């Protein structure tokens, strides 16, 4: 999975803040998010529901409804097809429209509702082609047919004239992908593209995306909360919690040597059938999953310090004092925890070993 990338940064998000003014107060959905994507690379963003994954991606697309939304700060530096770097926070709406669908495309979680039910899929694909590439309707329809073929839809000449409701969920997601790729974007943002699909269909789609990326060479910002999918798709991973990036790093680093308690908790709370000790042997007491206690924080009443502090079993009193910095733990691996060094020391590559670090205490290794 780890390909050799040119190392050129396509998108750099620095200290991005997106707030929503609601009746009950200001929701800081994205509160100082920083990350970057290189050309041709797949960056996965994981995190719990409400952690700000979608808002981050929508902010990059400048599709946040304003009001109530508001970009409260930060920058989004993007180098488009024309090679000019722009700060997407500042560009005009007209310019942004040229970027959307052309330089950056997006596919969404709900394939069932993300397509307009009253237009044929061909129309919907051709629409963007006509807009961005100045093609005639007929040419654009040909492009649409080609794109459908490209994403593996059988009999595309026929399907191009069909309506979304005539297709299954997996097919619709393929149509979405075809639409997103129709203008050969430099960056594809995929917001949980397989969450609503069955595993067998999910496998089809993930397979498709991987193949397409190889062919087209675009970068992918892949948003999900399924760690299995992350493991399969990503080159690098950004872990978000409570509107902030809590950890960032190479996919293997993140899975093998997490430096943030939330990442560790997440990894522990999912079943790993491949690992012997997890499996249940008849006759013996069943094994248990390790759960992160507590609830996802209410975005209106985020804790003042580390947002994970109330659920963190390693929390120290100082954790609630101030927001910990996102520190580089070496090799581009970043973590937002004041105790990351202890975790690193305790276990160079196994998250599970960290269990013997006492709650709020010293490492008793």
């Amino acid at each position, binding site marked *: 999975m780890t390909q050799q990338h040119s190392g050129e940064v396509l998108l750099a998000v620095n200290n991005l803040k997106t707030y929503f003014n609601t009746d009950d107060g200001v929701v800081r959905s994205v509160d100082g998010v920083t990350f970057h994507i290189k050309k041709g690379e797949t960056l996965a963003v994981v995190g719990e529901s409400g952690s700000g994954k979608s808002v981050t991606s929508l902010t990059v697309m400048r599709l946040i409804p304003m009001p109530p939304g508001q970009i409260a700060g930060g920058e989004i530096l993007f180098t488009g097809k024309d090679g000019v770097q722009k700060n997407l926070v500042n560009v005009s709406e007209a310019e942004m429209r040229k970027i959307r669908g052309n330089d950056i495309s997006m596919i969404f979680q709900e394939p069932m509702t993300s397509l307009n039910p009253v237009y044929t899929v061909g129309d919907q694909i051709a629409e963007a082609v006509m807009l961005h590439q100045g093609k005639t309707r007929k040419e654009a329809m040909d492009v649409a047919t080609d794109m459908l073929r490209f994403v593996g839809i059988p009999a595309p000449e026929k399907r191009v004239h069909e309506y979304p409701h005539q297709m299954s969920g997996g097919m619709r997601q393929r149509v979405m992908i075809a639409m997103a790729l129709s203008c050969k974007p430099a960056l594809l943002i995929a917001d949980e593209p397989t969450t609503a699909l069955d595993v067998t269909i999910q496998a089809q789609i993930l397979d498709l995306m991987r193949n397409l990326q190889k062919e087209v060479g675009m970068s992918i910002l892949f948003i999900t909360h399924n760690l299995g999918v992350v493991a399969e798709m990503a080159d690098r991973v950004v872990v978000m919690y409570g509107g902030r990036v809590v950890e960032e790093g190479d996919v293997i680093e993140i899975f093998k040597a997490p430096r943030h308690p939330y990442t560790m908790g997440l990894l522990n709370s999912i079943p790993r059938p491949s690992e012997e000790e997890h499996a249940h042997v008849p006759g013996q007491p069943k094994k248990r999953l390790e759960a992160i*206690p507590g*609830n996802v924080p209410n975005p209106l009443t985020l804790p003042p310090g580390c947002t994970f502090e109330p659920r963190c079993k390693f929390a120290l009193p100082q954790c609630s004092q101030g927001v910990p910095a996102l520190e580089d733990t070496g090799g581009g691996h970043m973590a937002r925890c004041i105790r990351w060094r202890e975790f690193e020391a305790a276990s160079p590559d196994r998250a599970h070993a960290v269990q013997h670090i006492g709650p709020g205490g010293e490492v008793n290794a």
Partner: protein
Amino acid sequence: MTTVTSTQTEKTNHAQSQWQVAWKQFRRNRLAQWGALGLILLYLSALFAPFLAQDSLSSYSTDNLVPNHPPTPIHWRDPAGEVSGPFVYRYTQQLNLDTFVNEYKPSDEKCPVRFFAKGDPYKLFGIIPMDRHLFGTENAECKVYLMGGDNLGRDFFTRIMYASQISLTIGVAAVFISYIIGAIMGSLAAFFGGWVDNVIMRLVEVLASIPDLFLIILLVALFPPNVNPLVRLYIVLGMLAFINWGGVARTVRGQLLAEREKDHVMAASALGASNGRVMFRHMLPSMTTLFIVNLSIAIPASILTESGLSFLGIGAVEPYASWGSLLNKAQEGGFSSFTDRPWVLIPGFFIVFTVLCWQLVGDGLRDAFDPRKRR
């Protein structure tokens, strides 16, 4: 056992029922609040109509004929410039045979305006006998015509106040009745299904296929001729209700069928709840919001229908009046109602205002109960 307890302490001031949430939303809607205020004032004044009005429903003099008396200015200074209590002059009327317009001239006779003046006896709320009115001159020949008079010389303000009792209640009552009928029929259809459903729904279609107004006109003629005008009004009300229940039944049926599929309803049956319990505890309550919102939109519609009936002479008849029937009199007067006695148009603006208020409130309620807005 080791249960995972949620360690996070939630704020406890969040205990809000959906009513409280709705109320909070409603409170935010300025226009709706103005509408609600307007309605409260209207209904209060209707409740106290006999007290607010200076006369009884149909009070005029046949000695001193004052058809279409204009509004009388209330004076505070007598001609000498001295400040006195409020008073009005008595007016005399003359039909100008050149222009055919009634001309009114003030006479010298001053009639002091008193508050809590004695006047025609009435029963407040239909029970408390009283004879005090908010204001009045205690002189039948020399009244305060706040909003002018009608062609018999009856105080128009008084008529409007009494008319408000009919106009404001007939719409509400008709809608309530039609909702009750509709809810019952709709529930029966949804609950029993099969031929019951079929018959009820066909009936609804039949009712819907005949234009409303014609149906009412036809139906009203069916009823016994020699009934008291008030009973007649109730009959009209019943007819109004009768033609409208179809739509309600259809909605209720649809909603109930949808509701039946909901998980929490299924959960109740899984617990072994009886059909009645499922119906009344789990299915019908979910319709309260739908009802509240629809009611607030149906009521103004039926107020308008009533005025349409008055236009056809089917609404309130002498001595009773509704805003619609008063307005119809203005309509019969044609352009003279505009040029010679514009005050007869006032009932029209009461209708407009009431409908406006109801609509604003309806809008506010719809937004307040809108699940999209609840978080």
